[in-house]
């Protein structure tokens, strides 16, 4: 197995608050990995650092062996990272099909664009909604549409920030299947997730973040049994 993402000694703080402290993190190609941790643990910040929305104070990010620490966001996307945000980041005034076209059109044209759009519509169960304005889709459908858009750039690594937030159990299950399907096609997946049942469904291994640094890593069962992990979750719940 090869390493797709490698993070070395990443540090970031806002004002006096440290949000990433000496993070070392490695992700193998083909993995399906989850990041967990209580609110404010730094999960979203970690994503934003990976995406280039924040610049780290120190540390290095390697993607596919290349140093991407100083690339702009869209340049990282073009290297093969893609993301689905927590709040659905779709274009509400555009139709579902237009959303997908915008997502794909910088590398596809004409017939191959139409074909890819059709396939992704199928994949996301949105074929019947192709001309609907994206803003009126159900919450789950909006999440799927965004996953479809994220996949459209043909990423090697897909970052998912709480992909099932606000979904019904049935939608959550379907989403899990979708992710397994994508993973089977060779896309590495890194997800931030709260729903432990869902984590169990999709992930072989998890990383626990706490106060901006990596607290523990291991299988999901190990982590739920880990006394320290239980403590930070309970401690956080007390606050």
């Amino acid at each position, binding site marked *: 197995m090869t390493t797709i993402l490698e993070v070395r000694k990443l540090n970031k703080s806002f004002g006096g608050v440290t949000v990433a402290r000496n993070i070392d993190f490695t992700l193998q190609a083909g993995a399906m990995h989850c990041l967990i941790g209580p609110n404010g643990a730094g999960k979203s910040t970690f994503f934003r650092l990976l*995406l280039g*929305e924040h610049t780290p104070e120190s540390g290095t990010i390697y993607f596919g062996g290349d140093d991407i620490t100083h690339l*702009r*966001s*869209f*340049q990282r*996307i*073009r290297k093969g990272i*893609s*993301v689905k*945000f927590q709040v659905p*980041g*779709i*274009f*509400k*005034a*555009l*139709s579902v*099909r*237009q959303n997908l*076209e*915008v*997502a794909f*059109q*910088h590398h596809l044209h*004409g*017939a191959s*664009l*139409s074909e890819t*759009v059709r396939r992704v519509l199928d994949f996301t169960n949105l074929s019947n909604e*192709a*001309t*609907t*304005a994206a803003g*009126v889709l*159900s919450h789950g459908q909006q999440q799927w549409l*965004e996953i479809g*858009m*994220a996949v*459209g*750039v043909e990423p090697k690594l897909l970052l998912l920030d709480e992909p099932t937030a606000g979904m019904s159990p049935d939608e959550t299950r379907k989403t899990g299947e979708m992710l397994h399907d994508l993973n089977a096609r060779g896309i590495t997946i890194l997800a931030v997730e709260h729903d432990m049942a869902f984590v169990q469904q999709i992930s072989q291994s998890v990383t626990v973040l706490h106060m901006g640094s990596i607290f523990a890593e291991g299988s999901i069962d190990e982590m739920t049994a880990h006394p320290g992990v239980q403590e930070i979750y309970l401690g956080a719940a007390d606050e």
Partner: protein
Amino acid sequence: MNEIRLPDATEAPGRRGPRLWLSRLEGPQTMGRGLGFWIAAALVLLAAILYPAFNNDYTVGNAAYFLVWTFMAMGLGLVWGYCGALSFGQTAFFGLAGYAYGVITINIGSAFGATWLALVLAVALGGAFALLIGYFMFYGRIKGVFIGIVTLSVTLVLETFMAQTAGPQWRIGEARLNGFNGMSGMPPLTVPWFGGEILLYAGTTLYYVLLGMVVLVYLGLRMLLNAPFGNVLVAIRENPERTEMLGYGIRLYQMLAFGLGGALAGLSGVLYTAWGQYITPSSMGLTAAALPIVWVAVGGRRDITATLLGTLIVIAGFQSLTIYGSQYALVVMGALLVFTVLVTPNGLVFTVMSQIGRIFGKGRE
């Protein structure tokens, strides 16, 4: 679920080159599609072509004058309505290009179509300046209302500076900038023709030339907006972060759109200067800067057709108000603006067009 269906935007596969571009005359980013729309558009164009046959020279020349402003309005529609960046300073590019036309033509004269060379150079200068300002703003992560403030400041700096260039030391070659009183003495657009030149004073010939330019720019913008470029602009307006995370260098797109908007404002500036053989710093002032925003907002910024029609209606309407409304004209104008914003937030023309579209089932919404 509330079914809102949007027209399908799929480009017919297999089309290439000109046919592909022609197919983009209609699409998701512009209102109006199908035979009905194009028949209506052709009728409007026909009416415009026949207009001089039924009106006197003054009315035709005055209509030509209205057309002069539409380019700046369409450019602002592109930048504000489609790209989501409210520029309060399109007049900076308008004025710069207008002065450039004056300086160039006063120095090289009008023979052999030189005025058209001046037009191209001046518009390019306006566009280049807009690219520069666009680079400064978008790569500097300036957003929202601050874009308006920066652009307004730019146009006011230009105005303040130009207003004090009355002295004889302020000359470029033969051309005196002439300060607040404004620069004059440049030739009108001139077409070299057999047996003498045709001077495009405000009249039927100028009207047809401008009508042709409006049609070209309008159709060109329709194609551009329905092309992938336009899709991305709208995506940036809707959600810039998401668009960037789809791998687009959004700043480049914004800068290019801003540059194009600036070039169109420059085109209006050149045409205005050539029309009246006069350009003044006050055409870059606060009042002048606010006017394009008013035209576009009243017409409707979200659609290029609404912008075009709205601009013509507002300019003509304000002029008639001034002619017939005496001192109450400005009061009525003000009341109209407030009314428009409160009652038809998407713009007067846009709202009417969507209603028509709904009736015939061909509109965008």
